[in-house]
């Protein structure tokens, strides 16, 4: 199994130097009803990175703890119960108390990823899609231009989805990946935009790195392949640099081959059996990008 980082890294990202990866610090803020810290930490740790889980309160008390962190991971869960609206209360708290530090992290080329509630928070914070033209010179967070609202079919649902990656996207997290399979587990995952111009711009800039696809591999708006009814099958967003990425499904819940609902059938069909889950590749991509300076 996948408990040996060096061998996993050799399998998934042979170009990466384990010693260099071990120097990378990944910050995983926790608490307030967030709950995917174990699998998100494991995603990076299985590959050999150094993960620091830190309660959001400690980060707010000392924003300097963001310094020196290569990757900031916004995890899934139900921050403050998703009361009011998903991610709203936590996004506000972060904006009021940590906004400048977050904007600086991104402006300095820091990486960030958010899954599910983490993605909802990033969107409501303005981290995604981020500045539309160029980064604010005053290192301020962009205003909220998109939102994630209730699925067309009311209520939370848990089922695996398939997403196709846009090869033309600047997103470093999906680079080289074609299909990503992950569980989708949310009630509010439908992406909407302040106006059609923003949507068109994001479309033109390949800022939708992942889209839900049907059995034929085509982007779809039809349930259940697209759990939310998100237009164009859009499942996630990246910023202009491609280093900040968020999506509704949970690649961090596909770390082991046995996470996949069809793992037995796949094992039977395959000549060799990879014991890691393909969701790990997203995180390996993030580590690779962290070792390469942004352009």
């Amino acid at each position, binding site marked *: *199994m996948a*408990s040996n980082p060096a061998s996993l890294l050799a399998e998934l990202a042979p170009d990466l130097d384990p010693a260099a990866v071990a120097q990378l610090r990944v910050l995983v803020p926790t*608490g*307030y*009803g*967030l*709950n*995917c810290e*174990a*699998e998100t*930490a*494991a995603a990076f*740790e*299985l590959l050999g990175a150094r993960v620091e889980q830190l*309660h959001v*309160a*400690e980060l707010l008390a000392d924003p300097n703890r963001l310094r020196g962190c290569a990757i900031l991971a916004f995890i*899934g869960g*139900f921050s*403050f*119960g*998703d*009361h*009011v*609206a998903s991610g709203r*209360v936590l996004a*506000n*708290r972060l904006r*009021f*108390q940590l906004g400048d530090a977050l904007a600086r992290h991104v402006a300095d080329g820091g990486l960030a990823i958010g899954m599910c509630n983490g993605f909802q928070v990033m969107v*409501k914070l303005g981290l995604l899609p981020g500045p539309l033209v160029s980064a604010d010179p005053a290192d301020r967070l962009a205003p*909220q231009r998109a*939102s994630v*609202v*209730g699925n*067309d*079919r*009311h*209520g*939370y*649902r*848990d*089922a695996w989805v398939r997403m196709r990656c846009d090869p033309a996207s600047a997103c470093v997290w999906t680079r080289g990946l074609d299909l990503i399979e992950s*569980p989708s*587990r949310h009630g509010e995952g439908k992406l*909407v935009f302040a106006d059609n111009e923003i949507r068109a711009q994001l479309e033109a800039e390949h800022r939708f790195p992942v889209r839900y696809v049907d059995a034929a591999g085509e982007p779809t708006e039809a349930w259940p392949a697209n759990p939310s009814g998100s237009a164009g099958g859009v499942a996630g967003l990246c910023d202009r640099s491609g280093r900040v990425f968020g999506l509704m499904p*949970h690649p*961090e*819940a*596909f*770390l*082991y081959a*046995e*996470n996949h*609902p069809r*793992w*037995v*059938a796949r094992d*039977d069909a395959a000549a060799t059996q990879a*014991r890691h889950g393909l969701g790990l590749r997203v995180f390996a991509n993030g580590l690779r990008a962290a070792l390469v300076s942004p352009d």
Partner: protein
Amino acid sequence: MTLHRLEIEARSGLGDPLAEATRRRLDTWLQLRPRALATRRVYHLELGLDADEAAQVLAALVDPVAEVGALGMLADPVHEGEPAWVLSIGSLPGVTDAVGSSVARAAADCVGRPLRGNVYTSTLYLFWGLEREAIERAAKQLLYNPLIQRMKLELAPRALDLSVPRAGSAAAPEVHIVPLRAADDAALETISRDGMLALSLTEMRAIQAHFAQLGRDPTDAELECLAQTWSEHCKHKIFASPIHYTDPSGVGRVLERGLFRGYVRAATETVAAQRLARSLDPAGENFLVSVFHDNAGVVRFTEADHLVYKVETHNSPSALDPYGGAMTGIVGVNRDSFGTGLGADLLTNVWGYCFGDPRGDHSELPAGLMHPRRIRDGVHLGVIDGGNQSGIPYSRGFELFDPRYTGKPLVYCGTVAAMPVAVPGPDGAARPTHEKPIAVGDNIVMVGGRIGKDGIHGATFSSVELDEQSPVQAVQIGDPITQKMMWDFLTEARDRGLFSGMTDNGAGGLSSSVGELAEATGGARIDLAAAPLKYPGLAPWEILISEAQERMTVAVPPSELEAFLELAQRREVEASVLGVFTDAGRFEVTYAGTSVCDLGLAFLHEGVPLPTLEARWSPPTPSVASPAAARAQLEALDSAGLGAAILDLVARPNLAANDDRARHYDHEVKGLSVIKPLLGIRGDVPATATVMRVRHGRDEGVVLGEGIHPWYADIDTDAMARACVDEGVRRVLCAGARPDRIAALDNFCWPDPIRSAKTPDGEHKLAQLVRCCEGLHDACVAYGVPLISGKDSMKNDAFLGGVKISIPPTLLVSVIGQTTDVAQSLSLEPRGSDDRVYLLGPTALELDGSEYARACADRGAPLAATDVPRTDLERCWARYQAFVEQRDAGRVRSAHVCGRGGLALALVHMLLAGERSLELSLDALVDAQQLPLAAALLSESTGRIVFTSAAAHAPALEQALGPHGLVALGQLSSAGPPALRIQHGGGGSALELSLASLRARFEEGLHGI
């Protein structure tokens, strides 16, 4: 304090999923079709904000992209010339409002200063195209529960409504003396009944005698504290008392040790002794780590972690408020597993429900009972929200339906946790996590939520039947986020060695939690004035016994108190020092210097009288088996008739697909799932057992299954108990569990088994309980499976409008197994293109209590009595050991149990999951067992496993399992459209059921309900 009203709705054109879901329910349930429907969220902010601040808060709460909001009111649009009917639904005073708490937090973040006060949330439904009466009906039957909510219906234009359900009163916290010593028997009974104490006359007399000896009368709080501690819910008196038992053969004897010690604990003790005798465990590494004395059972797993498991029921509250009652069930059992030893890490939840039939209009239901589909809806939602928001994945889940659950639904919720074998003590040195090293002088600290009147008398309420007087306050509503924040804090504190023990505040509140922990040192002293309240006006006795949720009672050594409280503050978790553990032998409670309660621990915990109970096997209508008649009925089914019967079976609510519901439960969070609760190509087949990793980066896993067969109890509860243990064990073995590391939990839900005017058949019901315990004991001993935790709920009757509805005696056996390598796990889904299909274990003419027999009865053509499935324990266990050998040798490629619905349903599951044809011949089976084909397919004989094996392994496997009742059924096939094809009569006759027809019926059974 200033009050502002905020209204928020979706921006036009963006859709309103809640309105859409409501529209669908109105249509399918009530046949109401409004022309248009919209919803809004309303927050009343009583926070002392000024007008500018209120506007800022509005701006921070409203999504700038997706929503619009207003201070005061949004305009109510006119639709096709028609004004809207506006239905407002909010909480009653004092009902937990978790959303309101989050909005208050958000408001404080926004204005940048701490705020005092409350936020009250409500929901507006705007209807067009429905009359007032129709909307009132919709409110009453779907949208609102008068026990916890208030509603208002008005036609637009509305006036600004600034009323809020403010709770509390100016009542002074007084302690009353109850004149018990002077009371005669009639007065004692009145005091118990009027005070909702659920104390019997014998118990009231014992209390009277105790206080007469002390030379004083008790306070109201002392009486309440005794009532909680002595409640059936907390003290399990029916399981503790001696029983005079007359068995089915008419022979009488006295079970001096009672049911718990004589059967339940005895089984575990015997299994422990067997393990010792056989040296199954290395020295110092007993499988059983902690059983029966803590909140949940603990067994050994790896060198790093133990496993903790507890399953609870929350039936009575779920009857009154399905959503809140059921949510409290799951978040409550979470606290049990969490609060075991020094704290465990919650791993996975299980759920299981027994409801009335959700179909039909049920207009005959007595007033006070909800339609079973509404109870079902609310229970699901409550447990979904409770578990999902806590970040704990679900593993197992089942639903059963029977009209006798219409009075009280059964709501089972359970939680597995991983407990680190050791955690650091205050000095940094490791100490065992499963112990609670509480010392005299340790502080008693209450952590988490505040205390209100919610859940007062929950423990005593669950110890009586449901009737018109059932107290509204008995319902508590959970707040999973407050609880999650509390766990995160307590886990940090545990890992820093900041406390020496904890337990949850569930039934009986502080009176139980402090009362129990006090046994560790031999005393406790608390001051209730230090307990934080949700609102003023609670009497001291109410503070003492309130079951307000999200609270743990923690023992904190003086040296760690400052660090503990400081960490709590940083994590926004309220922690209040209430008192100290002593060795005075007393439970002493004061309120700001006034004595509230001063009870000797010995009397509190051991003083309850346990008179000998009467049990007599005396079934009202003994069933007379007529197997010949049943055979004739079964033989009369031709292939077409049998096919139709199977299709009908698959659509019955007990067997139909419930993935539509089950997928609302998160079963993937934590990223550890291996065999998920739903599987197969379409992900709609319930797994035989579930498997998940326990820690990241490791391959050991936990395997979960269960058995529940309430209909067998109608014939014989001994057979029911054996069947439950057998099926639970068989399930985990199919999935790959080690046979030497299996443990089980017992949950008894019974109708009142004490004879009284209302329960003339109580002696038989108690005899049924005795036989159930005998069966449970025998099965556990035979399989070497210890019972590590349990729960009993003994008053599952509803008495409403002169109608009594009692549940059938129901035992749930939840089984927890272990595997060393999750990658070796098996599921029921067949593999390979031509694997062989086998049935292991004999089939007998055992259709009593079967799903097929119920289907016949529902059609008005009852099947003649045969027998209930009996379980030959020794043979079964030998068979399973042989099976496990083959399994571990890699000769088994998929495995499934024959359970409800018999072999037919197992085969249907295999077809649905793999969408590969099964080409079978049942001649060998029919011949070997001398059974009608229908009986071979529909009998529910226990002890049977259907499995597949690669053709190459067949000879070795057949040789090894031949002596254990192995029958070759046929093989998988990829030819033609997928179907279940069964030849019999030497190929003269064939039964073919296509995958498409089976799936259509499977999906249809519960569709839209």
